[in-house]
C-alpha cells in the first residue's frame, strides 16, 4: 500500500471537520481502505514487480541484438536464415496458449476441475509445440553452420531467443507443478495465489514474444 494510495483514500473517505489527530495515530494501511490489502493482492503485486524486472533484463538483450543485428561478419543474415512460416506457427501456438491459460485461471477461480485441468493441458500442448518448433529451428541453423559462434549477430540472436525459450521451458515445468498441486491439494488459497502468479508469468512471456517476433523475425526477414 503506497503513500499515494493512502492519500487518495483520505481524500475520498474523510470530509472536512474530521479529527485529523486521531487519524494520524492509525497505521497508513487502515487509513486507506479500512483494512490492509489481502495476501492475494500483495503476492501478485510483488510478482508483477519481478516480471517488470525480468522485462528490463530482456530489454538489455533486445538492445544488444539491435546493436549487433548488422554484424554478420560475412556470414548468413536474418534474411537467409529466418522462415516466417515457422515463426507464424510459433506465434499462433503461444497466443493460443496464453488464451487457454486465461481460461484455466477462470476455471480455477470457479473451481471447475474439468475446465482448469483441460485448459492447463491445452496450454502445455501449445507451449510444448512452440518449444519444439524453436528447438528444430535452432538445430537446423547450427547444422547449416550458423551457430552462435558464427557472428556477433548470431550470438545476440541465440542469446535473446534462447533466453525466451528458457523462460518458456521453466513456465512449462511450473505449469505441470500447478496441475499436480491442484490435483493433490485442491483449490486452497495459497495454490490459487500460485496459479495467479503462473498466469501472469505466462501472459508476460507472450508479450515478450510479440516484441521478439516483430524486431527479430519480421524486421530481420523483411522484403
Amino acid at each position, binding site marked *: 500500500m503506497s503513500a*499515494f494510495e493512502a492519500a487518495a483514500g483520505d481524500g475520498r473517505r474523510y470530509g472536512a471537520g474530521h479529527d485529523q489527530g486521531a487519524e494520524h495515530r492509525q497505521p497508513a494501511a487502515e487509513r*486507506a481502505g479500512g483494512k490492509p490489502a489481502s495476501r492475494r493482492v500483495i503476492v501478485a503485486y510483488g510478482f*508483477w514487480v519481478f516480471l517488470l524486472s525480468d522485462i528490463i533484463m530482456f*530489454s538489455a538483450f533486445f*538492445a544488444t541484438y539491435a546493436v549487433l543485428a548488422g554484424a554478420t561478419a560475412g556470414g548468413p543474415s536474418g534474411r537467409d536464415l529466418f522462415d516466417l512460416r515457422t515463426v507464424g506457427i510459433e506465434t499462433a501456438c503461444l497466443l493460443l496458449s496464453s488464451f487457454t491459460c486465461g481460461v484455466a485461471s477462470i476455471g480455477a477461480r470457479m473451481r471447475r476441475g474439468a475446465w482448469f485441468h483441460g485448459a492447463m493441458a491445452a496450454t502445455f500442448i501449445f507451449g510444448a509445440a512452440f518449444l519444439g518448433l524453436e528447438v528444430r529451428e535452432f538445430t537446423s541453423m547450427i547444422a547449416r553452420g550458423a551457430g552462435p559462434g558464427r557472428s556477433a549477430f548470431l550470438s545476440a540472436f541465440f542469446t535473446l531467443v534462447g533466453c525466451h525459450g528458457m523462460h518458456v521451458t521453466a513456465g512449462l515445468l511450473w505449469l505441470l507443478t500447478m496441475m499436480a498441486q491442484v490435483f493433490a491439494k485442491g483449490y486452497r*488459497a495459497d495454490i490459487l495465489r500460485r496459479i495467479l502468479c503462473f498466469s*501472469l508469468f505466462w*501472459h508476460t512471456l507472450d508479450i515478450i514474444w510479440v516484441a521478439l517476433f516483430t524486431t527479430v523475425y519480421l*524486421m530481420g526477414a523483411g522484403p
Partner: protein
Amino acid sequence: MSQYEPIEYAGDAETAPGDEAPDGREFSEDIGSYLVGLGLATMLTVVSFFVARTTLVWEPSIPVALAVLAIAQMGVHLVFFIHITTGPDNINNVMALGFGVLIVLLLLTGSLWIMAHMNHNMMLMDHGM
C-alpha cells in the same frame, strides 16, 4: 485454513495484477474478455505478418508500421489478458508498469543512440587512416 475458503476479494481497495473483475460475474462474462483479447491479438498479428512481406506498402514505412502494431498488441495483452486498467484499484500496478516502461525505453534508446554515434565516429577514423 479450510480447504475451500473463498478467494480473498471482498473489500479490497486494490486489484491484483492478472485478476479479473471480482464481483459476482459469470463464467461467460469473464471468458469474454479473453475472447476479445484473442480476437484483437490475432488480427494484429496477421496484419504484422502481412505488412512484413507485402510490396503494397511503401517500404521505408514498414519498420514503423511493425513497431506500432507490436506496441498495440502488447497493449491488448496487458488490458485483456493481464487486466491492467486505469481504475483507482489498479493505480499501483499501473505505476509499476510505467516505471518499467521508462527504464526499458531509456535502455533501448540509450544503447542504440550511443552505439550509432560510436559506429559513426569509428567510420570517420577508418577513412582518416
